[in-house]
């Protein structure tokens, strides 16, 4: 199998911007873990009580929370869940009942009970960053990645112990790297990547480290902590835990407050604003506004409390581009099942530690490269900023982002306005994703082939099409090649207009690009999304998967050229 090579990789090692770990915001945060949790809990309770004043409202909230939690314990328990949970929640319920019948109106005891609940949540959410763990985890990752790469690429046993190839040859970081490094020492960075695979967080963690940035805090799904090897890495890399099973208001408020306060204290953060992995394989169109909103809120707080040199928050969109997504078959199945019904589907974790190691081995021993595009930094309103961190308007004039929070000459608190700003920011991020998305040859062949298949059956809707047997689909190669040329040209045009980006390998002799694209798309799946048959024509073994990889280029209106 031919390996797809990028143009000579310019990646280099970057010096750390902060020399010692004790200077890192995430370290400072974990050193003061106890007092920080206390602060989170206190402010969360304040907030809940402002929106739900009075003893009865608090007790109602507690009662419904306890019921939801008991329900979760009954139906959906995980390995990471603490053993004392059932007792804790039945206590809360009992106390709630006692308080609501004691015939006095003083909300103080109800508030105290709420505080214990919120405190417990804050404690569960909080990350535990330890420098020694961090160093070890980093070294293990680096060491093994490097060994595996060398062992596989240089076909001699002894090569296993050399480090001729490194991870940097495999992962291509492109885009506004210098800007990111510069801004990281001027303000607080929030990286918001697209989310396609469970390995995204490890990948981003590696990228952050290799760019010389201090560790970021990030919200990782609690389900990932079920897998021990992940739990170890995440704990050491500054992750805090997000439990998507818990939908009750006190939990969500605690989570948002945790993120909000950590950002205010200058901890660089990472959110996957899509909330969960893209099921369809499409670039996220709708973002979850909850965590993103904490960035807007934190910025407003900073402006209202620091009049001199307020610390600015920078949002950095990032896209991750793969030829192959390990979980693609399950993701697309989920997507197809749920489409149109909009219901929640529980996460199925089929991948234990062993599967992941296998994947990492496969990934590193073959040529499937990954590219990471770093976008231009934005302020919390979605305006571009310059390298000094100044917000710019559409004519590149410097504007004061602080003024967005001003009415009648002073900074005012207006949650509805914050929400609206968050919505604007999310629209901007989605636009940036599409702009910095780096088209791979494999994405393009998948896109074109699927649309051509669709055109062969114009009367069928998506589900009708997917039900047809795979043998029914075949595209004459010449026809495919001509279409490919046309669409590739349009991608060049879009790039001129700054609406998309593509990997350097997309240029080049068309036959070669197609061949490599087909070889690489979904490279390790049992059933390949695209192949050429004996006659040289384009066929598929798995239409669902082809649909998944095709989706990556949906939203650019490229169908018009096919």
């Amino acid at each position: 199998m031919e390996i797809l090579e990028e143009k000579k990789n310019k990646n280099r090692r970057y010096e750390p911007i902060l020399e010692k770990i004790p200077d890192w915001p995430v370290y400072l945060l974990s050193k003061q873990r106890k007092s920080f949790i206390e602060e989170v809990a206190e402010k969360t309770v304040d907030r809940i009580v402002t929106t739900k004043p009075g003893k009865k409202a608090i007790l109602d909230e507690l009662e419904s929370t306890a019921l939801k939690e008991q329900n979760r314990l009954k139906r959906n328990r995980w390995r990471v869940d603490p053993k004392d949970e059932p007792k804790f929640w039945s206590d809360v319920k009992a106390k709630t009942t006692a308080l609501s019948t004691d015939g006095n109106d003083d909300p103080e005891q109800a508030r105290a009970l709420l505080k214990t609940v919120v405190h417990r949540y804050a404690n569960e959410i909080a990350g535990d960053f330890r420098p020694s763990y961090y160093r070890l985890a980093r070294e293990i990752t680096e060491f093994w990645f490097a060994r595996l790469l060398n062992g596989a690429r240089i076909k001699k046993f002894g090569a296993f112990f050399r480090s001729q190839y490194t991870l940097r040859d495999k992962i291509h970081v492109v885009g506004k790297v210098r800007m990111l490094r510069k801004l990281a020492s001027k303000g607080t960075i929030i990286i918001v990547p697209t989310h396609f695979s469970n390995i995204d967080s490890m990948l981003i963690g590696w990228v952050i480290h290799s760019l010389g940035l201090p560790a970021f805090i990030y919200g990782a799904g609690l389900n990932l902590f079920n897998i021990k090897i992940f739990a170890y890495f995440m704990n050491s890399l500054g992750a805090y835990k997000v439990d998507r099973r818990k939908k009750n208001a006190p939990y969500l408020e605690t989570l948002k407050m945790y993120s909000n306060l950590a950002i205010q204290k200058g901890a660089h953060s990472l959110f996957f604003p899509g909330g969960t992995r893209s099921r369809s394989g499409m670039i996220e169109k709708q973002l979850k506004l909850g965590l993103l909103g904490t960035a807007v809120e934190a910025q407003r707080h900073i402006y209202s409390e620091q009049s001199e040199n307020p610390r600015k928050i920078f949002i950095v969109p990032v896209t991750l581009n793969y030829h192959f997504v390990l979980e693609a078959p399950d993701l697309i199945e989920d997507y197809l099942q749920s489409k149109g019904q909009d219901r929640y589907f529980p996460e199925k974790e089929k991948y234990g530690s062993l599967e992941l190691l296998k994947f990492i081995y496969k990934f590193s021993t073959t040529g499937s490269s990954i590219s990471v595009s770093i976008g231009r930094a934005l302020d919390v309103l979605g305006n571009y900023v310059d390298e000094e961190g100044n917000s710019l308007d559409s004519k590149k004039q410097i504007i004061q982002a602080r003024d967005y929070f001003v009415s009648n000459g002073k900074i005012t608190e207006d949650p509805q306005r914050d929400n609206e700003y968050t919505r604007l920011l999310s629209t901007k991020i989605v636009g940036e994703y599409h702009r910095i998305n780096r088209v791979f040859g494999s994405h393009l062949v998948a896109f074109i082939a699927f649309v051509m298949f669709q055109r062969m059956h114009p009367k069928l809707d998506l589900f009708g099409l997917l039900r047809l047997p795979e043998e029914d689909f075949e595209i004459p190669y010449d026809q495919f090649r001509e279409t490919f040329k046309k669409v590739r040209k349009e991608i060049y045009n879009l790039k001129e207009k700054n609406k998309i980006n593509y990997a350097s390998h997309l240029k080049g002799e068309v036959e070669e690009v197609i061949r490599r694209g087909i070889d690489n798309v979904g490279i390790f799946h049992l059933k390949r999304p695209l192949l050429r048959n004996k006659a040289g024509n384009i066929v598929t073994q798995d239409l669902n998967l082809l649909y998944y990889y095709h989706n990556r280029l949906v939203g650019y209106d490229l169908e018009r050229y096919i």
Partner: protein
Amino acid sequence: MSDTSDKPVGVIGAGNFGTVIANMLAEGKPVLLYTRDPEKAAQMQSERLCRNIPLHDRIKITSSLQEVGEKCDVIFPIVPSSGFRNLMRELSPFLKPYHLLIHGTKGLDLQLPTGKSVESMRYLDRTMVKTMSEVIREESVVVRVGCLAGPNLSRELSEKQPGATVIASPFQEVIQTGRRLLKSDRFQVYENNDLIGVEFAGILKNVIAIAAGALHGLGYGENAKGLLISRGAVEMVYLGRALGGSTKAFLGVAGIGDLVATCNSPSSRNFTVGNRLAKGENLQEILSSMDEVAEGVNTVKIARKCAEFYKVRALITETVYKVLFEQLTVQDAVSYLMRYPLSLDIDFLDH
């Protein structure tokens, strides 16, 4: 959110509606009213009269956009849609993110490749057709934007008759500020958070108003008008939804309310256009004899092209277009509409 500042409120555009709004605002706040021509400004300032409407004592006339930008936090731009984008470009250097803008212009902005006209375009879609709030967002750093809509016939308002307006904005802050500035014993302010929908309701109703004027000009009575208004409302809903509004926006004060008011009002400019057409005048004569813009004439062209692109059946819009630009007589237009095979009354409430 108490407003203690005594900063003046800005109004840009001293047409009928702009002047009336300036007068209403001046009841509670000092007002800076902008008009482009410095000579006219000086004259208005000394005569205290604008389009024969007496100006409130608290209104100061200016011809400097810089002054408006620097002195006012809240600005009401009320100029015809054809000049709106240029105005915003001139105003933009003086605008900051703390400004709030509430516009009162019920028309569309059109950006075409050079040398093209609406007629010569193969199609029109929403990347070329913009509402005024979108123009504000594109041309300035101001985010907190809203619009005034609803039945606001300038003459009635200036006579201090009871009335109401809708302020639409995704920002509660904008709505509440506008409400505080405008609300009075005889003027009610409703709120709506579907800015785009409310803008389109105000814009599209002008087309129906032309048709209503035409029916009136032919001497038809209330049955015909009832039919037109209800079918017109349905058409507005479909077209408005295709263009990005919600059904709700069209059923409220800014939609039905404005539609009914305008379709019954000889003082409405768009109604007048239809009325005089039916009486046999031609469009050029009518437009050149009017002192203010009838937005509906321009809207018809754009709405028709958009309806085509978004595959919405817009029978009334289509027919008004033919009357205005393709020499179809009003009489023939009516008989064409009456013969058209339609039966279903309303089906947009089901989904």
